[in-house]
């Protein structure tokens, strides 16, 4: 297995604090989304990203504004980390006219194409081809943009992963496949349905680098994805980065969670990515405990404001039903 070895740029203390704040924001956002769902304010379902914040934040910290990501059904974290506006996201969760998608997409289809967010995706693996195609467009246009494709361990076994990985390899496309191995595809443990213990070896089959990193550590993710991004930007082609992580909660609200132990959850929670970065930053004297508490309070206010904004936004006009089917 070839590993990615190049190192990304060193992060300044201010960037690190921003990353911590972003992880807090993501967690607070998904907490509030769950509450809204339970209050009956939100429709459909919501797939909480809680526990996995280090992956989105570490990976997106490597990107430039012109770079693109594709996301998944569990997409709030990616969207926020790539610069999504929590107010427009929350309004979309509530199906309101002011939402990112004017209330037509909901939690699973939040997108901000101008910000490089090519959308959450309701189809498992649905973003893999899109990210690869976006990378192709960048390459054809001669731009040094990259595309980061987030997907879960469940998508590893979709045909599109293999077709796209092969294409990205032969065409040396600037795409980084970031597999969030959160251990479960709904009830299915990753080792039950994936033919190899470490999915990163699948990159070998397509002749590009693959490696795993600690997905509970934002800095480890930053480092691993950063190396892959540098490689892609240099025109050397795709990489696969498997981030080993865990979703603390169920697949979505209402998951019976009969397929895993409480002890297992507790063990993962002990490695909490937010606490981990917070402790590391305090230790580095990048921030104080009081700063961290203040940051959390800021984030709580920010998300409360997003909820208020969403609730104040009107329902979509019924006349918009048939709008935007075609350009």
């Amino acid at each position, binding site marked *: 297995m070839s590993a990615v070895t190049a190192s990304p740029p060193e992060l300044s203390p201010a960037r690190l604090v921003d990353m911590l704040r972003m992880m807090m924001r993501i967690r607070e956002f998904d907490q509030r989304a769950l509450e809204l769902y339970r209050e009956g304010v939100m429709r459909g379902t919501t797939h909480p990203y809680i526990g996995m914040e280090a992956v989105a934040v570490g990976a997106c910290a490597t990107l430039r504004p012109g770079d693109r990501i594709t996301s998944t059904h569990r997409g709030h974290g990616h969207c926020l980390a790539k610069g999504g506006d929590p107010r427009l996201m929350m309004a979309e969760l509530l199906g309101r006219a002011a939402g990112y998608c004017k209330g037509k997409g909901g939690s699973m289809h939040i997108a901000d194409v*101008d910000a490089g967010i090519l959308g959450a995706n309701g189809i498992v693996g649905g973003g893999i081809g899109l990210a690869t*195609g976006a990378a192709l*467009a960048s390459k054809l246009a001669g731009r040094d943009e990259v595309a980061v494709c987030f997907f879960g361990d469940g998508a590893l076994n979709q045909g*599109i992963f293999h077709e796209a990985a*092969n294409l990205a390899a*032969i065409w040396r496309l600037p795409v980084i496949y970031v597999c969030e191995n959160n251990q479960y595809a709904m009830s299915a443990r990753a080792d039950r349905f994936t033919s190899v213990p470490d999915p990163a070896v699948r990159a070998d089959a397509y002749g590009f680098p693959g490696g795993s990193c600690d997905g509970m550590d934002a800095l480890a993710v930053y480092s691993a994805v950063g190396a892959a991004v540098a490689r892609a930007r240099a025109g050397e082609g795709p990489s696969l980065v498997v981030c080993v992580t865990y979703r603390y909660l169920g697949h979505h609200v209402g998951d019976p969670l009969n397929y895993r132990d409480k002890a297992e959850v507790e063990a993962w929670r002990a490695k909490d990515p937010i606490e981990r970065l917070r402790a590391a930053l305090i230790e580095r004297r990048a921030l104080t405990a009081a700063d961290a508490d203040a940051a959390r309070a800021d984030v709580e206010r920010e998300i409360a404001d997003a909820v208020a904004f969403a609730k104040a936004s009107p329902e979509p006009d019924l006349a918009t039903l048939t709008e935007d089917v075609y350009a």
Partner: protein
Amino acid sequence: MSAVETQQAPAGTRVLTYAEALNEALREEMRRDPRVFVMGEDVAVWGGGGVFGVTKGLVEEFGPERIRDTPISEEAIAALAVGAAMAGARPVAEFMYADFMTLAMEPIVNQAAKIRYMFGGKARVPAVFRAQEGAGRGNAAQHSQSLEAWFCHIPGLKVVTPSTPADAKGLLISAIRDDNPVVFLEHKMLYNTKGPVPAGDHTVPLGVAERKRDGRHITVVGVHTMVLKALQAADRLAAEGIELEVIDPRTLVPFDLDMVVASVRKTGRLIVTHEAYERCGVGAEVIAQVVATAFDALDAPPVRLCGANVPVPYSGALEAAALPQVDGIVAAARQLMA
């Protein structure tokens, strides 16, 4: 063969084959717009440009980056086209046979068709999905289907079915310039048909049908080869005093209902004919819309002449029996006039 083949080219046109006309459209659009690129199986190397010669010579002019041979990965071809289109390119993805598009339905149906709507109108997917369909060459069940109804069913897709070289060029240019995902379906038996094709920038708007022949008695709406067969039937029936008015919708989505209804108001009789399977086919949709819009204009129940509801068979005799033919149109017309 067809009536158009013997036509002289009017001023400003040349007689080209359908395949050449498509080739010209791709060439002109790629010259005009650097964002346009072609990808598909065997579009560059094979025979100098595609199994049916549609991309012939393009790789020489535009290079292998923009005329991009792909592995046999239909889902990825479609999905990459969608992603590239979202990221600012204007891909023309080719599927060697429309039958193979069944492997690419996820990105076409769930992604391309829905992205604009799902994202609240804030995204565009200007991708063209080209394929050839249809029977007539003994390619049997997995290489002869006409699957346009699959795509017509999906909101967000446009569906184009040219029947003449001029329309092939004009519609393909319009499809490439369109900001929506367009499923552009050619017909394998039409590639070698010839007709006058305007030189230079020739576009045919999507959603505008063409009356290929005027007639007073029966409106015939045909798709692809059935337009040509309807014209042949019209020649034969003219001798009996039965006049067919032949309409080629050219695009099935959007559909030019107005022209069809105007014609039915004149004739009172309607035949819709396509090679695609009859059941839940486009003919059913066209008839439903005409009946709902112009019931009072009908002097006889509308008739469908469609592909039999069987997998397309291999044997020449069976294949011909599975497809609507000129004789069938003639017979149906006579019965409508009986």
